[in-house]
């Protein structure tokens, strides 16, 4: 007590002016892993504003080995106003734990800069000191009301009297929405519709911070997809201080008892048992019980020895409400599959074991609906080489079955009568992606291509119980079985088979991992023959990590332990309905209707950063290119048959060789170029259902198999390459040739957790949220002593550190966990010295953290890109740097210049021709470069739009002046006598090579200037001289020494007369025929690419990627030549200009001679 009083006094005495900041100081645990004393003063961000309301400073302390206890230390914190030099806060804080968090109010701060000084002290000795500066600015309050149209990607095809649940996310700009109650949904007639809201992210750490992402659930009526026809929205989101949402007419009521949750959603009542959890039980509809479960039903699996493990056997199962609302409530059930007749005491990764595999099941209940959605995740806890599974199933008992139905292709169903059911099981097995068969014990009854993913029984009294499973044929094999006393859905079929006609290691098949997609048993051990086939295909038995066979060998050594598989199901309980209703509900569920807010709105909120809405009208060439690339990629997967529960849908790293053969090197788990973010980014800016479909499947694959969810420390397995064991939340790298193998990292270049965050914001998927927070974040903030932690934390300067920085800034904005700021602080320090671009670091540092130093380095870098200071240009995506420079630049001319450079540096024309190849299923590579290009293009469009540039090819600044050996002729035309300036911009005389000679010859052929240009930005003025006409500027430029930019003058006509040229940037020149005889032109870029575009249509006339000769007809209206090369050879001299306006046919060329002649 005495100690406590002393501490309190100590605190109070040392506080100066603390009242204005009203600091709240508290401690958090921080595992001490450093051998040295480590001290971070970490700011939440470098610039706060009045919109933030609160700020945060975190002190992170690791005492090292020489200090016995944290309690020996204290931290002195001082905040100094740099404007007034007044200390506005000072306090000595004794240490209890490794993290001290100080949250403080901003409202009483004066705008200006503040210095935060932290000193770690032992007694009176200062052991370490760290300082940070933050700025406080006042911003105008944004509009606090609005109405945003919603765009549906697919139709909601439901009976006009019915509705279907929709869950979506909407962002708001900072400072716009402070209370979720001030939001509602309106239908197209302006009528409010009941909705349920969940805050998914705020703009700051406090509950007083404004809302960044809001999740909304509502029930949509029959709706026509409007993402393309944006003029006819069916629903709107409206917000404002006076807005409130109407209550739901039907509510979910839940009564909790010691043993059960009793649920009544207005349409059905049922029980969820807290012990012996068997899914749901005692379903009552219309006052009669239509479904009664047993303790032997629900989820189960059977091992290769025939032992049965049931979810209902787990005595310690945890059943809880995860999200509660009137319209939707989610129950979360976590437990183990426990072997029949055991106590569930033992867990072993091989047999025998009492417990085999964990599960996390989510039951989503919707108000007024005769169905529940079940997202069932199985987490594998066994070794692939030790355990196989005969069956993974979900059974529901039933009696008095009259008929059964299987939904099959073309919106049909296949009816099975009572006799057939009584004579034994009848089952539909989706054996292959394009083959199902309905069989009974003796024969095949029907065959076809695609199951529709549902089956149902009709009882004697007409009640219908159905199970609907999403993406059934895509995720083959699957089985739906009707037995005499119930129905079973098999996540792995009980009646599966092998397909001897498929040569699973043929080069067209090997990447489909057939070993895991066929057979009577699920055997997840990759056979050795896969390695030997890879060795044969690559003509050598390499075993290293940088070879395809070496990665396939890692696949042979991989283990499923720690990976998961999630099944998305809807279980229907219909009474007084017919099978058509079951079909209708299933069809709706298959498409899983989703909507997004108007992309224009999303873009303006900046919640996703600087991205543009899909703009095919304004930026057709760019949008077409993205579409061809990304859609072409997934269409190639369809074409090559990449389906199945373990591979649907993946992104690959290297190349497609044509004829259904892929390079096997780094084939799976490619999150490492931020690939997983791509479909969602493209979806949120367009609403295109194609991206939604691919993104949903891809994120499920990554989140299930590409992230580790479980570890068994007694399991000694290590990955072949880098020898890692497992740590929860870690992302697999692409070095394993299967989605569950390979090395892995929590923080490194290879992670793409950002995609998961976006998915959570847009869909509210709680499994995804759980992986982010309860797996990934939990490990990085509280499992740092895990022996696998150092190997999974690759924070060396460069791409690993920088990708992590971008990811952590995003995670912080989702969870605001203070410990993340310590990592961010460490990563930022390294980033500022090595800005190697990977993921979203610079974008996030500029937009959210608002680092002044990073911005200055960007601005310096775009001016002096050749110096590559701080590694800014160590990037696959130079267009990102220019786009960001344009967005942040205030000078209008520079803004335009950078935006256009962003466009040209994206290499759009080259990508356009590559995209055509992909779309046409020609050989293509490398896939990893696609996200490098695509991810930052929406930012380029944003920059172009912000700079008001519709057509970047008509831009007028800072591309390289063509250099001509022996003298570059620039000819300008003065229409009216006046002074005009020649401004030399660029770089001159690199490596102290001195200047270059320049002459200006007037219209009377008199040399009026003869000088040497030593410095860039030299200005020469040609005086008003009583003459008009052509002036020839002869520049003695030296290849490799002088890189100048054009135009040189502000005259309206300026051209360059060349018979060959070199250039220091990518260029775009306009040219026209110099005479009526000139019908064709010939150009040849040295080694690299060139494109000739029609001036009329701006479409491509000819192109080369590899320095081939291009000879084309030149129409009288001229053409554009885009060169991405250093040197350009010409068949004939050309007169080039920066654009059409500047072009003219000079008479002076008749007097000019080229000193060097070139052969074509």
């Amino acid at each position, binding site marked *: 007590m005495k100690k406590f009083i002393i501490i309190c006094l100590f605190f109070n005495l040392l506080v100066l002016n603390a009242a204005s900041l009203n600091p709240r100081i508290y401690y958090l645990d921080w595992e001490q892993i450093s051998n040295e004393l480590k001290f971070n003063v970490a700011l939440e961000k470098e610039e706060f504003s009045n919109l933030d309301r609160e700020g945060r400073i975190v002190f992170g302390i690791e005492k090292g080995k020489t200090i016995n206890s944290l309690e020996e230390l204290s931290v002195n914190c001082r905040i100094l106003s740099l404007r007034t030099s007044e200390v506005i806060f000072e306090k000595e804080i004794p240490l209890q734990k490794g993290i001290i968090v100080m949250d403080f109010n901003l409202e009483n701060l004066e705008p200006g800069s503040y210095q935060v000084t932290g000193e770690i002290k032992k007694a009176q000795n200062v052991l370490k000191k760290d300082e940070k500066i933050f700025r406080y600015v006042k911003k105008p309050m944004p509009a606090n009301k609005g109405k945003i149209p919603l765009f549906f990607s697919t139709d909601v095809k439901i009976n006009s009297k019915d509705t279907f649940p929709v869950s979506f996310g909407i962002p708001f700009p900072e400072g716009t929405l402070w209370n979720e109650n001030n939001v509602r949904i309106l239908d197209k007639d302006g009528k409010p519709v009941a909705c349920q809201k969940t805050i998914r992210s705020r703009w700051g750490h406090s509950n007083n911070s404004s809302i960044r992402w809001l999740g909304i659930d509502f029930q949509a009526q029959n709706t026509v997809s409007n993402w393309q026809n944006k003029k006819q929205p069916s629903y709107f989101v409206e917000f404002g201080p006076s807005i409130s949402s109407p209550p739901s007419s039907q509510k979910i009521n839940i009564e909790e008892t010691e043993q059960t949750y009793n649920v009544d959603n207005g349409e059905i009542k049922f029980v969820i048992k807290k012990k012996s959890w068997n899914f749901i039980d005692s379903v009552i509809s219309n006052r009669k019980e239509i479904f009664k479960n047993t303790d032997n039903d629900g989820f189960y699996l059977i091992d290769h020895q025939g032992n049965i493990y049931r979810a209902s056997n787990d005595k310690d199962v945890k059943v809880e409400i995860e999200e509660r609302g009137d319209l939707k409530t989610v129950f979360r059930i976590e437990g183990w599959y426990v072997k029949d007749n055991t106590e569930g005491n033992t867990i072993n990764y091989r047999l025998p074991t009492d417990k085999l595999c964990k599960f996390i099941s989510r039951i989503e209940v919707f108000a007024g609906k005769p169905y529940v959605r079940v997202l069932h995740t199985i987490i594998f806890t066994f070794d692939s080489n030790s355990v196989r599974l005969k069956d993974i199933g979900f059974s529901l008992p039933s009696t008095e079955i009259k008929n059964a139905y299987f939904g099959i292709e073309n919106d049909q169903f296949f009816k099975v009568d009572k006799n057939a059911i009584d004579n034994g099981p009848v089952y539909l097995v989706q054996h292959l992606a394009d083959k199902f068969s309905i069989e009974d014990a003796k024969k095949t009854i029907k065959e076809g291509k695609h199951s529709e993913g549902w089956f149902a029984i009709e009882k004697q009294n007409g009640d219908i119980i159905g199970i609907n499973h999403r993406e059934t044929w895509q995720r083959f094999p699957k089985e739906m079985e009707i037995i005499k006393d119930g129905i079973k859905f098999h996540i792995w079929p009980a009646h599966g088979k092998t397909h001897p006609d498929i040569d699973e290691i043929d080069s067209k098949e090997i990447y489909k991992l057939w070993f895991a997609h066929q057979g009577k048993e699920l055997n997840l051990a990759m056979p*050795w023959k896969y390695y030997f086939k890879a060795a044969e295909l690559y003509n050598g*038995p390499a075993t290293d990590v940088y070879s395809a066979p070496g990665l396939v060998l890692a696949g042979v050594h991989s283990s499923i332990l720690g990976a998961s598989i999630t099944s998305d199901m809807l279980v229907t309980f219909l009474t007084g309905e017919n099978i058509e209703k079951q079909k209708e509900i299933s069809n709706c569920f298959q498409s899983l209707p989703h909507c997004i807010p108007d992309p224009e709105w999303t873009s303006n909120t900046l919640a996703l950063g600087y991205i543009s809405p899909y703009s095919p009208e304004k930026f057709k060439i760019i949008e077409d290119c993205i579409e061809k690339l990304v859609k072409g990629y997934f269409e190639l997967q369809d074409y090559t048959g990449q389906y199945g529960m373990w591979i649907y849908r993946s992104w690959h790293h290297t190349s497609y060789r044509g004829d259904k053969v892929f390079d096997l090197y780094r084939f799976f788990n490619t999150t490492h170029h931020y690939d997983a973010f791509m479909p969602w980014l493209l979806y949120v800016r367009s609403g295109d259902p194609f991206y939604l479909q691919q993104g949903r499947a891809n994120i499920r694959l990554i989140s299930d198999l590409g992230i580790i969810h479980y570890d068994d420390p007694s399991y000694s397995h*290590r990955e072949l390459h880098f020898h890692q064991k497992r740590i929860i939340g870690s992302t697999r790298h692409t070095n394993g040739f299967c989605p569950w193998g390979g090395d892995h990292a929590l923080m490194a270049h290879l992670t793409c957790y950002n995609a998961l965050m976006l998915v959570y914001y847009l869909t509210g998927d709680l499994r995804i949220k759980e992986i982010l927070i309860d797996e990934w974040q939990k490990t990085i903030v509280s499992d740092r002593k895990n022996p696998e932690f150092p190997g999974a934390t690759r924070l060396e300067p460069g791409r690993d550190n920088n990708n992590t920085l971008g990811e952590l800034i995003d995670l912080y904005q989702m969870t605001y966990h203070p410990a993340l700021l310590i990592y961010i602080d460490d990563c930022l320090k390294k980033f500022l010295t090595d800005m190697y671009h990977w993921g979203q670091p610079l974008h996030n540092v500029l937009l959210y953290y608002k680092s002044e130093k990073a911005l200055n380095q960007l601005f310096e870098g775009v001016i002096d890109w050749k110096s590559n200071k701080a590694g800014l240009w160590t990037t696959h995506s130079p267009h990102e740097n220019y786009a960001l420079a344009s967005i942040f630049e205030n000078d209008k001319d520079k803004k335009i210049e950078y935006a256009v450079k962003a466009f040209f540096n994206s290499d759009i024309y080259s990508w356009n021709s590559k995209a055509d190849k992909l779309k046409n299923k020609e050989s293509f590579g490398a896939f990893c470069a696609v996200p490098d290009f695509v991810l930052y293009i929406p930012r380029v469009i944003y920059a172009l739009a912000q700079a008001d540039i519709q057509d970047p090819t008509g831009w007028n600044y800072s591309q390289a002046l063509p250099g001509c050996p022996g003298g570059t002729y620039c000819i300008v035309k003065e229409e009216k006598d006046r002074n005009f300036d020649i401004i030399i911009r660029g770089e001159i005389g690199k490596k102290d090579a001195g200047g270059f000679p320049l002459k200006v010859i007037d219209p009377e052929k008199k040399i009026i200037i003869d000088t040497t240009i030593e410095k860039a930005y030299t200005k020469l003025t040609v005086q008003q001289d009583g003459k008009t006409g052509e002036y020839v500027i002869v520049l003695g430029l030296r290849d490799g020494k002088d890189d100048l930019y054009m135009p040189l003058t502000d005259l309206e006509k300026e051209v360059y007369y060349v018979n060959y040229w070199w250039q220091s940037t990518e260029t775009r020149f306009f040219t026209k025929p110099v005479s009526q005889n000139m019908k064709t032109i010939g150009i040849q870029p040295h080694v690299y690419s060139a494109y000739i575009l029609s001036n009329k249509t701006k479409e491509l006339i000819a192109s080369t990627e590899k320095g081939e000769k291009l000879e084309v007809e030149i129409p009288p209206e001229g053409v554009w030549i885009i060169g991405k090369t250093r040197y350009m050879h010409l068949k004939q001299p050309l007169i080039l200009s920066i654009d059409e306006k500047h072009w003219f046919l000079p008479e002076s060329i008749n007097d000019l001679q080229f000193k060097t002649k070139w052969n074509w």
Partner: protein
Amino acid sequence: MKKILIVFLFLFSSCFAEDFHLFTRGIYFYEKNDVEWHINFKGKIPSFCGFYFILFNVNGNCLYCDAIFSSDYSEKPFTITIPKDNITGCYKSVIVGEEAVFDSLKLPLSDLDYETYGSDYFAVHYKGRIYFQTPTDDTYVLGAYKGHLKVFNEKGEVIADTKITKKQEKYDNLTEFAGKREITYSLELECRYFKVKNGKKIFVSNDPKKIFIPDENIDKIEWWKIPLLTKEKR
């Protein structure tokens, strides 16, 4: 007394001898007279997928090709018997698996008089002296990964030493010597990994009597294609 002690140590040295474990790309056997001979895998196999073993002769005929499953073979070895078959000469085997497998398997594998390990890259789990021969009269460059090595001639004289050469290639400390075929050299290692540079290989053993230079044709066989000809047992 001293002499007695030496004799005692010599006689019982095998009782105290350290087990020899080595990563190598090829294991070569020489059957001088036609006999039934055996390959014994002794040790605990750490990889859950086991390892793959291929044994073939100079003609490319496969004598064994299969996965050896993960188990503890320390007490009871996994034995492959090669029957008397009127064929003698050189055999080669390849183990495909992770390095930990090589760390576990006790060498020698066979009960033949000649068994040697040929590779351009070795990971050594053994503290004693290692002996080797070069297949050609040529200059051999050896690199010790993050460590050092010395080469001795038959007289026990140092003929190459990375500490003296002081030449580096990335993480490897290099040294070189003029190799003569059929001369047995020895190595003293202060490193776990060492390489033979320039695409060459040497043949090593911890027992100089077991070393031989295999028929060079056996290395021309594309052994990785053999398992595809043999149906895998699952």
